[in-house]
């Protein structure tokens, strides 16, 4: 059972929800939390545990072998991403533009562009009592988050049984990284806040998950501030508002310090309980 926590707008509380929900649920059953916001992974700041495993993550890019190259220029022609440039009797590879499709490498008649591993990030696996936490972080200046997100999900798929609850803290937005993080999910939780920005970006996020054909619910964070437009929208669109987390300076201060909320704040514990029940009911309901 994979649960992706996403939002259109950044800073609405995805990580707050993901970490609190994961630790709350880990009180009664084993849970996996994976931070797929590889550009800015924050979940680990709220969790303590022991490092169980770490591994560098690589992407494959072509490396030019001058000795065998016939300089026919096919590589430049086949690359749709302008990642290869033939200049005079030199071939240049631009790794940051390469998507790793292998076309130049495998179509080269002299095999002069063998694929080579280039590190793009690192994966860490941390264990606490009942929680397995997996985090990947993209190296600075790497542009593409998607391949690292993909490999992180593969790691989770390989290490843990399908029925186990796995919570994915997803990147913000509606473009390719969030698609990669949510496309395999059984349930998507969209976190928003009751402001015009929150509503606008929620609508985009809803459009995205509907296109993916995913079951989804909304969690309203900072409830009490702003206006009631998000609640009206959810009602009009028949979207389940699974929980409300109240707006309070105390909550903001607790998060600022890197602490979890549910142990001290009953409203948050109640919200986590409601969401946990929802997840368990779906998990028993025929999903893998």
């Amino acid at each position: 059972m994979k649960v992706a926590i996403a939002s259109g707008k950044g800073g609405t509380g995805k990580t707050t929800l993901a970490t609190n929900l994961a630790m709350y649920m880990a009180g009664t059953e084993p849970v996996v939390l994976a931070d797929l916001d590889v550009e800015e992974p924050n979940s680990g700041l709220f969790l303590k545990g022991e490092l169980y495993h770490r591994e560098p993550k690589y992407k494959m890019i072509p490396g030019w072998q001058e000795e065998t190259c016939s300089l026919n220029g096919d590589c430049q022609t086949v690359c749709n991403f302008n990642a290869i440039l033939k200049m005079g009797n030199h071939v240049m590879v631009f790794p940051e533009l390469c998507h790793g499709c292998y076309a130049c490498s495998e179509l080269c008649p002299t095999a002069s562009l063998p694929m080579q591993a280039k590190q793009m990030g690192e994966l860490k696996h941390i264990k606490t009592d009942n929680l397995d936490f997996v985090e990947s972080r993209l190296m600075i200046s790497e542009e593409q988050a998607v391949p690292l997100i993909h490999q992180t999900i593969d790691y989770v798929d390989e290490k843990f049984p399908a029925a186990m609850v796995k919570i994915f803290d997803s990147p913000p937005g509606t473009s390719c990284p969030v698609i990669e993080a949510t496309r395999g999910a059984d349930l998507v939780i969209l976190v928003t806040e009751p402001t015009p920005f929150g509503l606008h970006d929620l609508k985009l996020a809803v459009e995205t998950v509907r296109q993916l054909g995913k079951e989804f619910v909304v969690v309203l964070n900072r409830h009490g501030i702003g206006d009631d437009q998000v609640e009206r929208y959810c009602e009009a669109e028949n979207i389940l508002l699974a929980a409300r987390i109240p707006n309070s300076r105390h909550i903001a201060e607790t998060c600022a310090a890197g602490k979890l909320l549910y142990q001290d704040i009953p409203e948050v514990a109640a919200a986590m309980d409601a969401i946990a029940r929802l997840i368990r009911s779906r998990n028993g309901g025929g999903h893998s």
Partner: protein
Amino acid sequence: MKEIVVISGKGGTGKTSLTASFAVLGGQNLVVADCDVDAADMHLLLEPDFAHGEDFFSGELAVIDQAKCSACGQCEDVCRFDAIDMIEGCYSVDEIGCEGCGYCARVCPDEAITNVKQNVGQWYRSAIRTGTTMIHAQLKVGADNSGKLVAKVKKMATEVAGNEGKYWILVDGSPGVGCPVISSLSGASLAVLVTEPTVSGLHDLRRVHQLVKMFRIKSGCVINKADLNSDVRRDLHRFLKEEGIPVLAEIPYNEQFTAAVTNGKTIVEWDADLEQLVRGCWEKVTQLADDR
């Protein structure tokens, strides 16, 4: 012409509220570019008229002509993105998975695959209520190539600034450190880093600053919600001092940020205290951007 790019690493730090306020304070002497193309929000505050809009095409998608396909499966074999599958006896392309590399089309012996340019969104040139021009865009949901659309928005903003003789280009960047942010930063005179004294805010600031440093772009920092946590605030100041990043403003935690947005206003039009703080900040921003 100088370009000021506002970024934050972490979302929800008040980046867009601040940028829209700068737009109000800068008035007619700037062009606004909303480069947060996959969750663009600035139009909610600046009321663009969407006077001119164009589709934006970037990247390709493989399309299989079933009439020509002999189902040999070579396309599936070469696809590194698992985007081609046999479904009900026909090879078909998973539109989300396809990266548009074109490898499948090159190996297809039946010439059954074509690459179709993708419409990934729209960009607009608008008049806004501050008496100037804004270039903004909307990426289609789930689309690739946000970095390319960001580059387009910036290119158009630069053109407009040149034609209309504007001195400033004010860019609202996107969260994170990946392709849209890298694209937002290219050619910037100054990066304004908006952060907050929270463990996440500090963590993300460090990462986004690494990126800014790598591109040798001058930066200054705005600390929003500055009184949320004094310990983290101290760490934040230490980091900024070590890196030689000037503090452009410290803004206390203030729920008027939300009240202003809810009323469709920027914070400088809504709250006198915030107006004073942000006006001082904008002066420092322009000075720093102009410094040699």
